[in-house]
């Protein structure tokens, strides 16, 4: 295979990881926006977790009001540009476009969305400003889609916001976890800078909140604490040999890729373990980094993979091979990874069972585990009264974001267990309104 040569320059990296949804020119945007029917009670709006008024912004683009279009988008979703590029639009807005019922192509909503938002970002055209100061202070932990969205909305409502981020850059997995062919680092950070300039929240980078004393400081200094902490590292599989060199977690691999770009090293033969969207990303990325062979190993059948069909198609399109109904038993090798020992599986009555005697070793020099991220339960246990459910998710009220500790609010992956950027952005906005209610109500009653 090797559809791609290993990129050695920034230029080659950009070519191997060419944007799936490139920026639309004005002419293309006019043509595409002209196709929109302006449906009543539009299915695309309903399919959007952040409820963007899609027919409206498309009509605004069509009538030469891209700034108004951007406002429509950002009023519903502060990650408007990122979502246009990284959302699984195929299963959300575009998947619900009525045109699909005619056999015609759905409207390219994602690209139109970014067409509008990129204009205001690139021109630095501000659409929002902070609300009149309320005197309330909110600490936001995590500068990911949930944290930043919550911060923006809180600032709009007039509350003072400080964001504490363990890493050196904002936007969380949008920067550190999304495949580079979905959005570039520059584009991600430009939107963050654009938001920060308008709303004026402060972000403390490289400032991890990880201990009880850290939390106590926040509890003393702030009225409310918002948890936008996301998920943790890749879960351990508990397999022998997992500590061998070149056996890495997908989240960690993708983070390296986003930071080091063409300097990221990948094996010649890579086995990716998992069947979710992150597994598809890691497999595609390995291929685009020039791996000669990439095998996607999943313990059930192809149809049972959690990944969206289009994500698997994308991986197949760059030469990734599927290896289904196999369970890893051991990462074999001598210091370095030399292969994965699998056993074949069969699904009986919904239960995956191994087939005795079917063990075999698939050779490789790199293993990427895309088998889910661990929850941050030990950190969460530092927060008094905060409950987590059996899956390690923060128990919260989805309408308000409020947790079982009334001063703590949460949304995003840490609360929903892991979903899209758009879910975090939408939930965090609702949480900001929950916080606002909490602050203004408790203030009145005291």
């Amino acid at each position: 295979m090797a559809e791609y040569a290993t990129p050695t320059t920034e230029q080659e990296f950009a070519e191997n990881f060419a944007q799936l949804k490139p920026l639309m020119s004005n002419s293309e945007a006019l043509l595409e926006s002209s196709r929109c029917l302006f449906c009543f009670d539009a299915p695309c709006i309903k399919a959007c977790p952040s409820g963007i008024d899609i027919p409206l912004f498309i009509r605004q683009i069509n009538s030469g009001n891209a700034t108004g279009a951007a406002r429509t988008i950002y009023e519903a979703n502060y990650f408007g540009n990122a979502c246009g590029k990284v959302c699984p639009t195929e299963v959300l807005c575009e998947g619900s476009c009525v045109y699909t019922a005619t056999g015609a192509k759905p409207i390219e909503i994602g690209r139109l969305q970014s067409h509008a938002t990129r204009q205001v970002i690139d021109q630095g055209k501000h659409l929002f400003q902070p609300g009149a100061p309320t005197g309330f202070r909110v600490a936001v932990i995590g500068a990911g889609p949930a944290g930043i969205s919550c911060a923006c909305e809180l600032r709009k409502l007039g509350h003072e916001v400080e964001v504490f981020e363990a890493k050196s850059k904002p936007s969380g997995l949008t920067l550190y976890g999304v495949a580079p062919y979905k959005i570039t680092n520059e584009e991600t950070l430009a939107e963050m800078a654009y938001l920060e300039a308008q709303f004026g929240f402060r972000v403390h980078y490289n400032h991890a909140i990880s201990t009880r004393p850290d939390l106590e400081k926040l509890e003393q200094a702030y009225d409310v604490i918002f948890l936008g902490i996301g998920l943790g590292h890749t879960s351990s599989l508990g397999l022998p040999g997992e500590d061998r060199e070149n056996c890495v977690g997908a989240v960690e691999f993708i983070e390296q890729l986003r930071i080091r770009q063409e300097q990221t090293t990948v094996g010649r033969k890579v086995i990716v373990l998992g069947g979710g969207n992150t597994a598809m990303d890691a497999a595609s990325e390995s291929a685009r980094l020039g791996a000669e062979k990439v095998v996607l190993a999943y313990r059930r059948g192809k149809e049972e993979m959690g990944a969206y069909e289009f994500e698997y198609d994308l991986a197949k399109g760059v030469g990734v091979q599927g290896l289904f109904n196999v369970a890893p038993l051991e990462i074999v090798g001598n210091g370095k990874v030399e292969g994965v020992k699998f056993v074949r599986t069969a699904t009986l009555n919904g239960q995956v069972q191994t087939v005795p005697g079917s063990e075999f070793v698939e050779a490789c020099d790199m293993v990427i585990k895309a088998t889910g991220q661990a929850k941050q339960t030990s950190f969460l246990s530092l927060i008094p009264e905060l409950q987590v459910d059996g899956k390690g998710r923060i128990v919260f009220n989805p309408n308000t974001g409020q947790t079982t500790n009334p001063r703590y609010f949460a949304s995003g992956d840490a609360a929903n267990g892991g979903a899209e950027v758009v879910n975090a952005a939408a939930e965090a906005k609702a949480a900001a309104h929950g916080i606002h209610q909490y602050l203004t109500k408790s203030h009145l009653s005291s």
Partner: protein
Amino acid sequence: MPDLSINFAGIKSPNPFWLASAPPTNSGYQVMKAFDAGWGGAVWKTLGVPVVNVSSRYGSVDYRDKRMMGFNNIELISDRPLADNLREIEEVKKRFPHHAVIASLMVQSRQEWHDIVRDAENAGSDGIELNFGCPHGMCERGMGSAVGQEPEVLQTIVEWVMEVARIPVIVKLTPNISDITEPAMAARRGGANAISLINTIQSIVGVDLDLFAPYPIVDGKGSNGGYCGPAVKPIALNMVKNCAQHPDVRLPISGIGGIETWRDAVEHILLGASSVQVCTAAMHYGFGIIREMTSGLEQYMSEKGFRTIDDMVGRALPNVKHWEDLNLKYKVTAHINPDKCIGCQLCYTACEDGAHQAIKLNAGTRIPEIIDENCVGCNLCSLVCPVEQCITMERRDDGTQHQTWKERTAADDIPVTFNDERAGGLHHWVPEPAAALGKEKHKTLPGKARQYQEVVVTE
């Protein structure tokens, strides 16, 4: 194989498609190229008096991504020397003896008319078209639409022309008038052999939102221009029909206005035109569009069994009636084909907000439902539906009854008060006004996609 050739008031051409007098017929070069491409005739860009043109001359009305739905110009008649034009007419006629070359003319005095008519004839023109239509630039000098809007002046000038003309004379009419048949009848009284219509409509196609000036802009200013293009076809068709139906006009009509496809041409012909003229489409797509026009026309004629163009001229005229002659007993209602419906619900919102509240939405499906008893058969839903043949208008009366307003008036059977049982809207249901409030709140209303409801937090 149908015969596309025509003999229009004595002017013969291999097909009914002529280029109208306009920029595409500005030179012998263009006309030869057009004939080479398959056009049947050309009305030369108007010859007359010396003029000076402005720079920036055309403006467009775009619809979404479609360019030039409507088009206007502030260009004048030919600014090329008369002798050059005449020489080129002669050259074209030598090369294309069987194609129609018509000289469009516009001058002022009787002597000037006599001279230029003779010049055009001597150059070999097959006919003459009198430009009484141009709505800008020339009318200020007492020509163009200044003539077309005054039937008596028009008649006088036609009489001057007919004093010397030995080839067919067509009078081109301006639509910038209340009743198009007035100048048409004046043309007939003056002795003209045919009429052509419509010339352009006075227009402003748009205003520049930054410069606060109308298009096309000449050094920050603009002027009204002459409007044409696909958007004017309905106005042209109505005027062609008016002239074709009028008992005192009785002249061959060359139909002009919004013709871009064979279909547009057939519509003009069915309403009485026996040749058609095209300008904007050629300015937009070049002379090559003639291929689609002739092939479409030929196909249509074959399928309908029309042997000649004359077989079809005016075929729709008997069906164009006054409103009072329409059958009040005829009844259609809309029908939605659920297998074709894609659930855009444009029919619902169009009927609900723009018509008669005769479509409802049901829970659990995006396919709307027609409320038969409220449907007045207006067609709106079928017009907005983006799917071919999804909403059809089905006949509901049994076809045995026929009654017109005219007949009812004659029989003294018309409502005279609103409470009269026979009054139309009396029994037509409309919702209570206040039933409108909040009716669609549970739907995702555009503009307020999601609102944060009052949320309840623990204190």
